[in-house]
């Protein structure tokens, strides 16, 4: 436990850190640029950034776990005054875990698959026999109690535990030696929203009782803002803002922070407003001179392109703020910019809704059941994935199918697309029962139904060009030939916003960003001119700042082309944004259904309520902060 008198002394100080990835075969890439910050005892610090911002490298650097190709080119990493980069290896080893411990992103991979939970936890004690008496008070059992895991799981192997349990084990392991600082690297990514919520609240409780400091690395600003005392926002290898959480939410912050926050809202609000930041972060090979964010910033001026961008040091009632933006000047005496100017940051998404029940029914699902039977030895188990589900899809309208993982929502999507056969019940499209289709007729059916996948990285053949991917439905389903194909490909590329088409037609998927790929996937689905599109979590793998943008594209295209869309998601906020009707699925059954507004504002079922409460909302836990400042002003304008 940190001594009382050191409460204001930082336990960790990072000074002017620069890290590059070096390679014999290409220029060095500087991934961490002049980063400096402090963490004080018991402080909960969030480190935020999109993929590629360097936040994980920074986390690894603090743990001194950089891969051999990463070089610290300059800077210091001081833990209670000792530079971790230079202290003797044995000193560092002893310091590890007893002072700084960590929880990695995926405990699937971070627990040794061939050792029991107990063995892996006891390893820590074996390695730190010299740890002080206080630290020995904790036992393996006690730590499990802290995260509410039954002791019997100690003798289990990691693969026998669920993802959430593994992460709790990792959490328990991290506090074994009562460290003063724990680094969490995306600890809940990949977990179900409800599980995520429970783990985070457990972490918060533990932190409050054990008083360790936390560095919480995440891409999810909403989650971090709920918990952190202070947040650091990274962009292109730099910390662009380092502020108390309350200040970051105040509406006066780095434009990038504002932009990121624009992606969050409470879906229950009568009117919500979501903004996104157009464009992509720069490649680390060629970070532009001056402010790296300038290219995407609506407020950028000539000043932002100057080589030296000053960092404003601001004292606020909540604490100290550092913001690297010309808007804030360089002197503490400089006045804060007015909140209203941030209205220009990011772009508001523009979505349309159809009235419930409008449009002709193109697909009718009646009393759908799907049972998987598995045989294990002589034991025969049945798993009812879908139970008595029925709904309709209408032309030009979006139906959201909302549920946790394992709720059966993906199975419904697969049945609807003819990939799987239902156990009973019917899916009728244009008078034909999809379940009865054979090979030949199924192919015809697929021209009417298209899929948009969750993972844009998997959905495109890495070996084929964008133009080829989009041309296939044109050739196969629409029987276009020669120049017709080419013209149509270009037209569709334009529709999904990949302009000029000539720029994208011949590219291979790996040359595109995640958002661009998802646009290509959408384009391919559109190319078949389907009547129905099934979109399975189409934005969950994308960076937060561009999710809204993709939603907008989806919304626009289904409605303007008169397509019925089944939007499968776990995320009620995104459902709120584009769906006309929401079906809430729980354990294979539809537990609540109705128009979007009805479901969200007059929620009846507890499960829906649970889902709603799991949505990260930066403002939720800080009711003292005015709600959605940017939203009020822009909605007025809309």
């Amino acid at each position: 436990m940190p001594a009382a008198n050191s409460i204001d002394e930082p336990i960790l100080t990072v000074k002017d850190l620069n890290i590059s990835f070096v390679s014999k075969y290409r220029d060095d890439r500087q991934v961490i640029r002049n980063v400096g910050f402090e963490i004080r005892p018991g402080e909960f610090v969030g480190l935020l950034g999109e993929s590629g911002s360097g936040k994980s490298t920074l986390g690894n650097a603090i743990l001194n776990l950089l891969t051999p190709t990463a070089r610290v080119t300059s800077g210091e990493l001081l833990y209670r005054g000792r530079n971790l980069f230079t202290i003797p290896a044995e000193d560092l080893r002893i310091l590890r875990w007893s002072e700084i411990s960590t929880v990695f992103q995926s405990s699937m991979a971070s627990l040794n698959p061939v050792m029991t939970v107990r063995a892996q936890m006891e390893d820590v004690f074996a390695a730190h026999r010299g740890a002080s008496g206080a630290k020995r008070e904790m036992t393996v059992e006690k730590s499990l109690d802290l995260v509410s895991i039954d002791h019997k799981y100690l003798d289990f192997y990691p693969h026998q535990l669920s993802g959430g349990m593994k992460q709790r084990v990792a959490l328990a392991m991290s506090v074994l030696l009562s460290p003063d600082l724990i680094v969490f690297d995306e600890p809940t990514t990949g977990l179900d929203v409800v599980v995520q919520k429970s783990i985070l609240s457990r972490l918060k409780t533990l932190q409050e009782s054990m008083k360790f400091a936390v560095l919480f690395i995440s891409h999810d600003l909403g989650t971090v803002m709920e918990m952190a005392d202070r947040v650091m926002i990274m962009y292109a290898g730099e910390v662009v803002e380092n502020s108390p959480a309350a200040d970051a939410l105040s509406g006066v912050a780095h434009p990038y922070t504002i932009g990121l926050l624009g992606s969050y809202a409470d879906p229950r609000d009568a009117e919500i407003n979501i903004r996104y930041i157009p464009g992509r972060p720069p490649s680390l090979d060629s970070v532009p001179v001056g402010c790296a964010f300038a290219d995407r910033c609506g407020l950028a001026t000539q000043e932002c392109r100057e080589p030296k961008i000053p960092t404003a040091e601001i004292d606020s009632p909540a604490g100290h703020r550092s913001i690297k933006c010309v808007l804030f000047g360089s002197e503490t005496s400089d006045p804060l910019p007015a909140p209203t100017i941030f209205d220009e940051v990011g772009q508001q998404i523009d979505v349309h809704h159809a009235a419930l029940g409008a449009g002709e029914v193109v697909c009718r699902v009646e009393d759908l059941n799907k049972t998987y039977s598995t045989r294990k030895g002589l034991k025969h188990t049945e798993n009812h994935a879908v139970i008595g589900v029925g709904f309709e899809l209408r032309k030009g309208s979006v139906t959201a199918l909302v549920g946790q993982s394992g709720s059966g929502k993906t199975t419904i999507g697969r049945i609807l697309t003819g990939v799987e056969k239902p156990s009973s019940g019917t899916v009728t499209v244009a008078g034909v029962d999809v379940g009865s289709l054979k090979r030949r007729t199924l192919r015809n059916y697929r021209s009417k139904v298209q899929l948009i996948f969750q993972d844009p990285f998997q959905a495109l053949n890495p070996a084929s060009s964008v133009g080829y991917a989009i041309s296939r439905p044109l050739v196969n389903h629409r029987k276009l030939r020669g120049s017709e194909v080419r013209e149509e490909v270009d037209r569709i590329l334009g529709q999904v916003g990949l302009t000029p088409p000539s720029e994208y037609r011949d590219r291979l998927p790996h040359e595109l960003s995640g958002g661009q790929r998802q646009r290509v996937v959408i384009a391919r689905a559109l190319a078949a001119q389907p009547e129905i599109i099934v979109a399975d979590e189409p934005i969950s793998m994308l960076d937060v700042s561009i999710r809204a943008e993709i939603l907008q594209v989806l919304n626009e295209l289904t409605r303007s082309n008169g397509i019925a869309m089944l939007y499968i998601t776990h995320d009620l906020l995104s459902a709120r944004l584009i769906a006309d009707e929401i079906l809430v699925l729980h354990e294979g059954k539809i537990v609540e259904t109705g128009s979007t507004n009805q479901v969200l504002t007059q929620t009846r079922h507890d499960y829906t309520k649970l889902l709603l409460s799991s949505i990260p909302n930066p403002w939720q836990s800080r009711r003292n902060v005015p709600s959605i400042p940017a939203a009020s002003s822009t909605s007025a304008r809309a």
Partner: protein
Amino acid sequence: MTEVETLVPRETPPDRPAKTVKRRNGWQVVWSNGKARTGIVILALFVAVAVCAPVIAPFNPKDSTLPPGLQPGGAYLLGTTNLGQDIFSQLVYGAQVSLIVGLLAGVVVTLIALVIGLVAGLLQGVVDEILSFSINLALVVPALPLMVTIAAYSPVHGLSLIIFVIALTGWAWGARMKRAQVLLLRSQDFVTAARFSGDGLWRIVFRELVPNMVSLVVAGFMGAAIGAIGAEAGLSFLGLGDPSTVSWGSMSYWANSNGAMLTGQWAWLLAPGLALSLLITALTLINFGIDALSNPQLREE
């Protein structure tokens, strides 16, 4: 995940033209690997020697009119055999056989493995069961004894036999790998997407699956070629090859059975072994580069 920076592809904002994007095709990835580059250069040298053998070799390798049993030196760079054949010329011509065996056996093995792997991976049920069973069977039947037996009892000896024997015993591993790869690929979203795009089976196989197996296929080919060259040498050394073809294996065989060790004709025994070693080294080095294609973790950074 570690090193997110290196794994996430480089991204270009839509508003920025993509001219900065350099496409690194397979060849460039392999060539950028220092080891592979060395291997390619050595291999190219061997190919050159094999192609230009008639120019490089001072004598016909089978011409037995030279003075027999000479030590290296003078007109006979590596001496002559007991039959009066020029060893250096034999060495030069031997490159042809090794390269041809490597190439042909590699192609045959790879083709068999690819076809069986594809069919087994694509067709489920009985066909897959039978093919998987054959693969497993072929993997457990001891290869060398089988090779030796077939080679020993074959009515005809020659390159085609060697290639046949190598193909017969060497396809299974590749087939298993390729089957696994097909199973992995066919469950990928982009294959589903191709089906939804209305593509037929053959198009899916040749446009979606095969292009994504290229590095595996090439690596399999290199492995098979290395194995084939080694097997040819081994079989020839056991006297089971075609003793009338001039290959490095048969040179070793003749050197050994004619007492090169005894009479001190070092070059006769040493040269073919070293040449083999150098050729296999070259191919192994190239394989490192190809590994890097399929396994980015092994890429040299």
